[in-house]
C-alpha cells in the first residue's frame, strides 16, 4: 500500500511524459501540424502552471499575478526581435533577467503582507504591468506586436519547424520537472513547505523566512518567464492580453485542477484544462459556462485536484 502510494505518482508522471513524447510521431501520421501546435501550447502552460505551483502548492504563496511573467518573457523576445536582435540565447537571457527583476521587486513588496492582501497586491502589480504594455505604442500597444522571426540558436535549432519547437518545449518541461523535483525535496524546499505549514513556528525555530520565500518567488517568476519566451516563439506574436488577470486565473485553475503541491499535477491540469477548452469551444459558444461548471465540480468533488482524486480511487486515501 505504502509502496503503491509512492510509486503511483512516478508511474503517472512516466505515462504522461511518454504520451507527450509520442505526440509528434503519432500526430505526424496525418500530416498536419494542428495537434502538435495544440500540445506545444499545452506544455508551455504546463511550465507556467508548474512554476506557479512551486510557490502556491509548496510555498502557500497565493500569487494572483503569475501571467505577468508570461508576458514579460514573451515581450522580452518580441521587443528584441523588433530591434532585429534574433539571437535566441540573448532573447532567453533577457526574458530570464527581466522576469527575475520583476519577481524580485514584486515579491519584495508583496511578501510583507499575507492572506488576501498578498493576493490583491500581486494582482495589482500584474495589472500595472498589463496596463504598461498597453501604453507601449512603439510595440503595438493593445494591438500587440508581430514577431518576424523565431529565436535563432546559431543555426542549431529551427524553431519554425513545429516538431523542433515541440521538442524544445518538451525538453524545457522535462528540465524544469527535474529541477523542481530536486528543489522541493532539498533543504530549500523544506523551508518553503514549512513556511506554508506553520510560518510562526518557522520563525521561532530560527528561520528568516522572507529571504527564502523571495528566492522561491523569483525562481517561479523566471520559470514562467521562460514559458513566455517559448510562447512568443510559438505564436510569433505578443499582446497585452497574455497578461490579463483572467490568464493568471486560468494558470491557477490548472494548478488546482491537476493537484496543488505535486509536480505532475499542474502538467495534468494544463492538459485537461486546455484540451477541454479546445473541445468545448468547438461544440458550443457557451463553452466558458460549461468550463466554469466543470471547474466548480472539480473543486467540490476532487479535493487535491485530479491527482488526489485518482489516488483516492486507487488507495482510498488522498495521496497529497
Amino acid at each position, binding site marked *: 500500500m505504502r509502496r503503491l502510494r509512492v510509486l503511483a505518482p512516478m508511474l503517472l508522471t512516466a505515462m504522461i511524459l511518454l504520451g507527450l513524447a509520442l505526440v509528434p510521431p503519432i500526430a505526424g501520421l496525418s500530416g498536419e501540424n494542428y495537434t502538435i501546435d495544440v500540445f506545444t501550447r499545452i506544455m508551455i502552460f504546463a511550465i507556467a502552471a508548474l512554476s506557479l505551483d512551486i510557490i502556491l502548492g509548496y510555498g502557500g504563496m497565493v500569487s494572483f499575478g503569475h501571467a505577468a511573467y508570461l508576458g514579460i518573457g514573451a515581450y522580452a523576445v518580441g521587443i528584441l526581435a523588433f530591434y532585429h536582435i534574433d539571437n535566441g540565447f540573448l532573447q532567453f537571457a533577457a526574458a530570464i533577467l527581466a522576469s527575475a527583476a520583476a519577481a524580485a521587486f514584486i515579491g519584495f513588496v508583496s511578501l510583507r503582507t499575507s492572506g488576501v492582501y498578498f493576493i490583491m497586491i500581486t494582482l495589482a502589480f500584474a495589472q500595472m504591468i498589463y496596463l504598461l504594455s498597453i501604453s507601449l505604442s512603439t510595440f503595438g500597444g493593445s494591438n500587440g506586436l508581430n514577431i518576424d522571426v523565431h529565436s535563432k540558436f546559431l543555426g542549431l535549432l529551427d524553431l519554425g519547424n513545429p516538431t523542433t519547437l515541440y521538442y524544445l518545449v518538451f525538453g524545457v518541461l522535462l528540465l524544469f520537472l527535474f529541477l523542481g523535483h530536486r528543489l522541493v525535496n532539498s533543504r530549500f524546499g523544506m523551508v518553503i513547505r514549512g513556511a506554508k505549514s506553520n510560518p510562526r513556528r518557522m520563525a521561532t*525555530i*530560527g528561520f528568516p523566512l522572507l529571504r527564502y520565500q523571495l528566492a522561491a518567488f523569483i525562481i517561479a517568476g523566471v520559470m514562467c518567464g521562460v514559458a513566455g519566451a517559448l510562447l512568443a516563439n510559438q505564436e510569433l506574436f505578443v499582446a497585452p492580453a497574455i497578461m490579463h488577470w483572467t490568464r493568471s486565473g486560468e494558470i491557477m485553475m490548472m494548478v488546482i485542477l491537476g493537484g496543488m503541491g505535486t509536480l505532475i499535477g499542474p502538467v495534468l491540469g494544463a492538459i485537461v484544462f486546455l484540451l477541454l477548452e479546445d473541445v468545448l469551444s468547438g461544440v458550443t459558444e457557451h463553452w466558458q459556462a460549461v468550463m466554469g461548471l466543470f471547474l466548480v465540480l472539480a473543486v467540490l468533488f476532487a479535493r487535491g485536484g485530479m491527482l488526489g482524486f485518482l489516488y483516492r480511487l486507487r488507495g482510498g486515501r488522498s495521496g497529497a
Partner: protein
Amino acid sequence: MPEPLLQVTGLVKRFSGLTATDNVSLGIEEGELHAVIGPNGAGKTTFIAQIMGELPPDQGAIRFAGEDVTRLPPHLRSARGIARSFQISSIFPDMSACDNVALAVQAHAGHSFRFWRDARTDPLLRAPARAILDSVGLGERADMPAAALSHGEKRLLEIALALATRPRLLLLDEPTAGMGPEDAAQMVRFLSELKGKMTLLLTEHDMDAVFALADRITVLVYGRVVAGGTADEIRASAEVRRAYLGEDDRA
C-alpha cells in the same frame, strides 16, 4: 554580581486598553528552572511571546547573555539560544515527526540555500533529529505524520522542536496543558531530567508540578508580579494565605 542570563526590566505590553504585561522585571540565572504561575489571562503567554520576540513590548528592555535583544526578531533570538514551546501545540502537521524535528535541526545548520540534495536522506539532519525524538520518547513514532500523533505525543514533539535548536534558554508555555494525569506526570519527569542541562522558564497551571520542579517562582496576576521567591518561600506564603485568608493560591 554578574548579570543573569535573562534580564527583563520594566516590561509593558498593552492590548487596546488591557495591560497584559504590567511593568514586569525579572532576572533568571544560568541553569535555573524558573516558573511563572498565575491564573488564566494573567499574561504568561504574552510574556513568553515577548521574550521570544514574537510580540514587541510597548516599554521595557530584554537582555539575554549580556546583550540587549529587545528589538531582535525571533529568528535572531533563536540563533542566540532562545527557544520556546507553545501552550497550544504548534507543529508541522502535514510532515512526519522526524521531518518536523529535522527542520528545526536544519534551522541551525547553516543557511538553507541548498537546492540539490534530498533533505530527507541527509544524515546531518536525520541523525540528530532521530536522537532528539528518542530522547523525548518518540523514537517509535518518527515516521508518523505529526497530525496523527496523540495529544500527549504532540506535546512532546512540540518540546523536541525547541530542543533541536540546542537552546541555552528554553521557554515552556504550559507544557502539561490538556494532558491527563499520567501524561502530565511523565512530562514532569522529563522536565526534571532537562533541569540543569539548560536554563528553563516555564509557565504552569499545575501547582504540584511547579513546586516539584522550580528553583524559583514568580506569581503573575493581571500582568503584574505579585510575589516572587524560592519555591519554598512561595509555597509557605501560599499556604499561609490559604490557611489564614481562605484564598486559593491560583487567584
